[in-house]
């Protein structure tokens, strides 16, 4: 009976705790950069787009056909920018991606620039007419069977969240409301979070949207604090529970049955660690620490065995 319960607990924890692995699924990325206005913003926007695009390609294995970068002027970075970020081009990019996605895939839309408007008419300044939050809501409605991660890193982006949020959607904005219109610094730490291991709080080799958001939010606070400035941007995340389940990066799974078995055994041990943690408050501290160390050593040994098995032909 005890055994059955434990197994049931393990199954539940695997179902609830495991992030949707963006590597196992296919990831599609659309990066849209708006009008810069001033040279320093241009450099910043271009760098953000390039870093994210490079990482998508190299770290997440996103196919070129699933990676679209639109910018103010493609000549500014021909290596990355595929087209001009006009309203028509953006609409067309969504259509192109809709032809490539499969059920369960992840679509990451990253929007950067200077924001304007409010409510459903919130927008980011793009060359020509600006698409509104309502326009983006219409465009992503075509991805009903995919998970869409929509990030608006622009100033005054807060009103995008209520307009775009919904089932299967994780929406991130750099600001809480459309009124927070000062220039934002959110984009850089958020991209750093997605493209390095720094934000990987649970050290599972993948960065969830929640981890990236949390990392970026802390970094934004720190940047303002160091400069002795009042915080004028308060990032928002639409769905923290779902954001924990969508992750980017991670090692490719092995097809070696020995490795698969070892990984399963390690997952079982990790689940035991989680179960022990859940009992921490009601367990004697000495017993808890002794059991924790025992389990963690077993996990560590299992990792060692996995690495060794992976190296063997």
């Amino acid at each position, binding site marked *: 009976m005890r055994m059955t319960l434990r197994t049931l607990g393990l199954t539940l924890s695997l179902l609830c705790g495991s992030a949707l692995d963006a590597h196992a699924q296919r990831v599609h990325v659309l990066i849209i950069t708006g009008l810069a206005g001033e040279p320093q913003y241009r450099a910043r926007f271009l760098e953000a787009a390039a870093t994210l695009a490079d990482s998508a390609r190299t770290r997440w294995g996103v196919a070129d056909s699933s990676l679209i970068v639109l910018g103010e002027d493609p000549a500014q970075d021909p290596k990355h920018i595929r087209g001009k970020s006009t309203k028509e081009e953006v609409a067309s990019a969504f259509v192109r991606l809709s032809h490539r996605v499969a059920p369960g895939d992840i679509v990451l839309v990253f929007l950067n620039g200077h924001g304007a408007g409010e409510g459903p008419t919130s927008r980011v300044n793009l060359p020509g007419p600006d698409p509104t939050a309502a326009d983006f809501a219409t465009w992503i409605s075509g991805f009903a069977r995919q998970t869409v991660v929509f990030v608006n890193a622009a100033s005054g982006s807060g009103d995008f969240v209520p307009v775009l949020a919904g089932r299967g959607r994780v929406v991130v904005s750099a600001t809480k409301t459309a009124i927070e219109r000062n220039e934002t610094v959110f984009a850089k730490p958020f991209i750093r979070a997605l493209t390095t291991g720094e934000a990987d709080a649970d050290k599972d080799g993948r960065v969830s949207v929640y981890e990236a958001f949390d*990392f970026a939010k802390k970094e934004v606070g720190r940047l303002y604090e160091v400069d002795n400035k009042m915080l004028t941007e308060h990032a928002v995340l639409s769905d923290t529970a779902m954001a924990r389940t969508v992750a980017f990066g991670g090692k490719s799974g092995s097809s070696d049955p020995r490795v698969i078995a070892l990984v399963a055994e390690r997952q079982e041990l990790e689940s035991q660690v989680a179960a022990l*943690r859940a009992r921490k408050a009601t367990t004697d501290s000495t017993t808890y*620490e002794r059991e924790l160390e025992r389990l963690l050593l077993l996990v*560590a040994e299992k990792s060692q065995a996995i690495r060794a098995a992976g190296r063997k032909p």
Partner: protein
Amino acid sequence: MRATAVLLAALLACAWQQPADQRAQVRALADAGRLDEAERMARGGGASLQASLGEVLVMRGRLVQADSAFRLALTSDVAGRRTAEAALAELAYRRGDRAEAFRRASVLAGAYENPTGAWSADDRVAAGRAYVILGTRNSAAVRQTLAAFDRAVAADSSNLEGRLRVGDLFLEKYNAPDAKTSFQGVLNRSPDNARALLGLARVAEFEGKLESTPLLRRAIVANPSLVSAQVQLARYQLEAEEYDSAKVAAGRALAVDSASLPAWSMLGAVAWIKGDSAEYNRTKGAAERLSSKPGDFYAELAEAAIRQRRYVDGMRLARTALAIDSSSARVLGLLGNNQLHAGNIEEGRALLERAFAIDPFNLWHKNTLDLLDNLRTFTTIDRGHFRIVAPPKEAQLLATYLVPLLEEAYDSLSKRYQYKPSGPVRLELYRQHADFSVRTVGLAGLGALGVSFGPVLMMDAPSARTKGEFNWGSTAWHELTHTFTLGLSNNRAPRWLSEGLSVLEERRARPSWGADATVEFLAAYAGGRLRPVSQLSDGFVRPRFDMEVILSYYEASLVCEMIEQQKGSQALVAMLTAYRDGLDTPAVFARVLGMKPEEVDKQFDTWVRAKFAVPLRAVAASDGKGEVGGAFVSTMRSAMTFMSASKLDSAKAAFQRAQLLFPDYAGPSAPAFMLAKIAFDRGDFRGALEQVQRVTSRNETAWDANLMEADLRAKLGDSTGARAPLERMLWISPYDIAIHVRLAELASRAGDHATALRERRAVVALDPPDPLDARYQLAHALADAGDIPAARRELLGVLEQAPSFEKAQTLLLELRGKP
């Protein structure tokens, strides 16, 4: 001259004037300080001018005669009877007969609230005066006071008395802007009105502005008999430690009004500070004769003692004052604040709450009580000789660095000054400068970085200011030095000596710490704008220009440096003990230096001119008007112009010329730093290092220069040497995680596990973006340092959160089985 003619005409005309005009003339004469003539005229006016006569007699300190005149006025001076009633209440209050004072004031206020006849502007002023007395027990009366004075002005816009009283009331209730408007309103009608000028001087002092003293002097010129102005001057001089001048000013006040308790209090304060017990007893006797409740006499003494940093004595005197008048918000506040400064937080809070209940307008008390609520959330860390109190977010981080530094300072200073504080030294650090300022003086806006109240120190946390604005290590060392120098001198060291020693000790602690010669200092010194040694305390308490306080710190440190150089370091200690023994500055100079003050002044001037002979030739003497000039400044300007135009060879040549003109200059855009940058960009790393060290060895806030030095040493393979600039940077700002990581790595590579461990702990305390990795690195450092159990504990904590963390798993396996 013009004023005299007007007054003469007024006197000649008075024979046929109406009483109302005559009263105005008496007042005009009194306002000009011509009290003899005012009295003569009032006496000549007979019964109808008795109230006016009484007012003049009060100004002259003839209180018994004044009392008789007022009593006569109650029945014979129809127009002046309400003024007489108010004045009688005030006289009763002055002599300590509070019951009589309140009875008379209540009657007058009652009549005002239920009027049966006409109330002139003067009558309304009288009602306001009654409310002032009632307000000492009931803070709500303040509004009625203001309304009465306002109505007096509304009834007669030329009534200056009403406007002056409004100004005084606003100032008493901490509303400087409105007080200023009222006093300006008086001056618009009467440009030489001494009381309005005095009011503006007090407003300027309240606002911390430099024009306070000039305005006060204008008031005294306008009316040399204005007792309150003379008393104010005496207070300023007492604060500047010019005791003889203070005594003269108080004496002038008493020559006019021998019954002035504030003037006797000033004389008493001077006598008490100088240890002149006969004179002190004389003043005390006078105060006791004047009032059966001379609480204000002791309050004034307490304030003077505290201004002289004699906190324990100040509190004792304040307690005496409180025993006389337990409802004095002034004394309760004074005692409460000093309990707080002594580190007795709960006692201080209780006293301030009592004070605030009596005077809810007091901004200082309100701010301080609000801050105390916030202080409850602070973290207290007791280690060794110190108690560190800081915001929880950074208390551990700051204590990690501060405690070893302060212990080092404690050892060094206790040996040099042969003094040890009796208990732990409390250091409070504030993330908001405004909080530090409120904790110190009750209001935001204090310019200082730190303050010492002996065994209690307060300072800005490094997070309170922009990086590069100050060095928090040298600031802590500076403040702690005060604990020792004030302790040794029994809090009698004058301001200049205490500050000078603190700056000197900063320089002794670390070569780059402490103030250094600047262009502004040399220009001001050459221009004769800085005070001679014998008057140097004035430069701190009565600055004549914006930078004088800052420059006086450096000047004071040079005085100490000269004394040490010429007489040995024991001379400085001997000076402190001489002050402790009650000697004044001339006597201290005579005993320790064998010189008169003017000889010390001369010797210092010669010494400074020799020490800075080279740069003084290249910096033009400044009169404070316009920009600083001279060959150094013009050469630097041309060098920067070349730099902006990317003409690097020309820029380099110009910077080299500038460096010859002022070789030790290490301030902003120092030639050495610019030359280092040019050399760095050209790949001349050795040349760049040689130059940049000239900055990092003299400038305690040079973040960029220290970073450059660390980079250069790394490029040149000097990983050991690269640690020193990184260590210096931590005292400029401890919040840069990259610097801590770099230092940890260098220390670890050098086998300095203690430093590596400290740095890894600092990274964790800074709540880094990747906390688990930081804790893993800490575990690694603990293992390297041989503390395996702690390393294991840390690792378990990490893996508990992230069981899949491979690096941590590997280390855990490595530690298995190790003891």
